[in-house]
């Protein structure tokens, strides 16, 4: 049952949460991924193993983690180690999903979080890779969470911080990245995308409620592939909203 009072953030969190597969390991970045992970663990995917880059594995936090190294990322965890152990677990193939963000994304799912403009004389200096490059390189599947507009969905990045499919099929393997890895979804403020397997190009899978395909296209700076059966994402359910508002983010810091 839907609840019409939801915000855009709440919708994104719910769409992202539904991507979590029960019984998988997931590398969780700051912000929406944390909320989505907690929501998924409280709904369809209680067996998700949240992994945080500075060492928390399998936490059962009673409160929303607000920093990737914070105490809540290893509250009642099964292990608290360090960044090398976590990144090496990813490098060995133990981390199924990575949830990351970026300032810009291109049709192949490459992400830019480093600079707008030239690297040495940028128009805007952004935070840099952080763990993004490691996650995009080493996890099996990555999900990007993005604001959706033409300045962010661009045909060509100023800087590839984190590899998606690079220049297309086979490119990841050719440069030495682990086989059979890469981006699988984008959750944006407008829609849910995946990648067309043959071309490795981004494809519209489902629009958010009230958003038209034309709107998504108009807000995308490159030729977005359109799935034959574009669906509409389910709005947040009453239960999802209750969990988000009452249990996950009662102080409404993010939602």
């Amino acid at each position, binding site marked *: 049952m839907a609840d019409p009072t939801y915000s855009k953030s709440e919708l994104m969190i719910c769409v992202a949460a539904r991507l979590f597969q029960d019984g998988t390991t997931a590398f969780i970045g*700051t*912000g929406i991924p944390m909320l989505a992970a907690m929501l998924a663990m409280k709904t369809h995917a209680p067996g998700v193993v949240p992994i945080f*880059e*500075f*060492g*928390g594995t399998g936490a059962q936090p009673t409160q929303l983690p*607000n*920093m*990737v*190294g*914070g*105490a809540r*990322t*290893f509250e009642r965890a099964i292990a*608290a*180690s*360090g*960044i*090398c152990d976590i*990144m090496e677990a990813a*490098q060995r193939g133990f981390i199924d999903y990575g949830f990351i963000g970026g300032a810009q994304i291109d049709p192949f799912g490459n992400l830019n979080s*480093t600079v707008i403009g030239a*690297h*040495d*004389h*940028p*128009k*805007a*200096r*952004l*935070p*840099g*890779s*952080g*763990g*993004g*490059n*490691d996650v995009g*390189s*080493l996890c099996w599947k990555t999900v990007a969470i993005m604001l959706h507009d033409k300045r962010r969905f661009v045909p060509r*990045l100023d*800087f*590839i*911080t*984190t*590899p998606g499919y*690079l220049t297309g099929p086979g*490119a*990841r393997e050719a*440069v*030495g*990245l*682990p086989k059979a890895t890469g981006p699988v979804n984008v959750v944006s403020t407008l829609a849910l995308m995946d990648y067309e397997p043959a071309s490795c190009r981004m494809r519209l899978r489902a629009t958010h409620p009230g958003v038209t395909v034309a709107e998504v296209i108009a807000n995308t700076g490159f030729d977005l592939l359109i799935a034959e059966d574009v669906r509409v994402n389910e709005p947040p359910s009453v239960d999802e909203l209750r969990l988000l508002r009452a249990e996950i983010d009662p102080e409404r810091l*993010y939602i």
Partner: protein
Amino acid sequence: MNVIAQGQGELIQPPDLEAFREWNRTRKARQLVDKVMTEAEAVAQFVADGCYIGTELYGTVRCPMSLTREVIRQRKKNLRVCGQGVLELDLWLAAGLVSQLDLTYVGLEVFGTSHALRRAVEAGAVTCVEWSNGAIAWRMKAAAMGVPFIPTRAMLGSDTLAHSAAIVATDPFTGAPVCLLPALILDVGLIHVHRADRFGNAQIDGITGFAFEMARACKRLILSAEEIIATDEIRAHPDRTIIPYYLVDAVVPAPFGAHPGEMAYCYERDDAVYREWIAASVTAEGALAYLAKYVDRVPDHRAYLDLIGEQRLAELRVA
């Protein structure tokens, strides 16, 4: 094992393993020497202008903030710095102390980008060499292992690599391309721990971030500690020692040393002060006003804690 590609970033701190070995032989006492001193003493003695320095873990989590502030108070110049940074690097950048960055992330997590970084980079005051978080940690790990480099399968294919000082080479065992990360030997490392003895034997509760690696990758290591404990406690649980004394040059007693960041099991993040920085740092003037209030007008960490106030500190304490 031919070199296929090479990042065009400057290798800001080229590793010299022989010099590091000689340093570790001659400049690190094997004896148990009392190393307790103040922030002012430690920074004055071991942090030089132009040095290559790093802090662990990051500004809002178990970060040596009392030492970070003292570096500003003493206005160390032309620092070359590695790291992700939240708050701590922001403060240094805002204070104009930094000239070069081995950068992986400088920002404010969910609160957005760093205004101090943007101002510094866009003004050309700071040059950046790019790395991933894993890469910086592995570079310290290589130094900690005493080897010239460590391979990784991250970084490949990205502009992060193109603007780093990493090398792509052919793995001689499999023929596949692999990224080689040069060892990162820091001139100075700052690490905040839960407890240490007077000689520097240190314990950390919870995640260890990259404390293990950084402690072993530094020529000079300044520890700050919530609590100074007896060596007998160290010897009773030697498997808890993540940093043995012989790596350490200074031990600074610093209760609430990570404030306004959190310290797991001890105290939570002080959101009020953190948000004050976030708001203030939008402008250069605001950032300087924050530094004046929280750094320059308080002579030391004790005065800083007085400024925060015992009542507020008590509220932050974890039961």
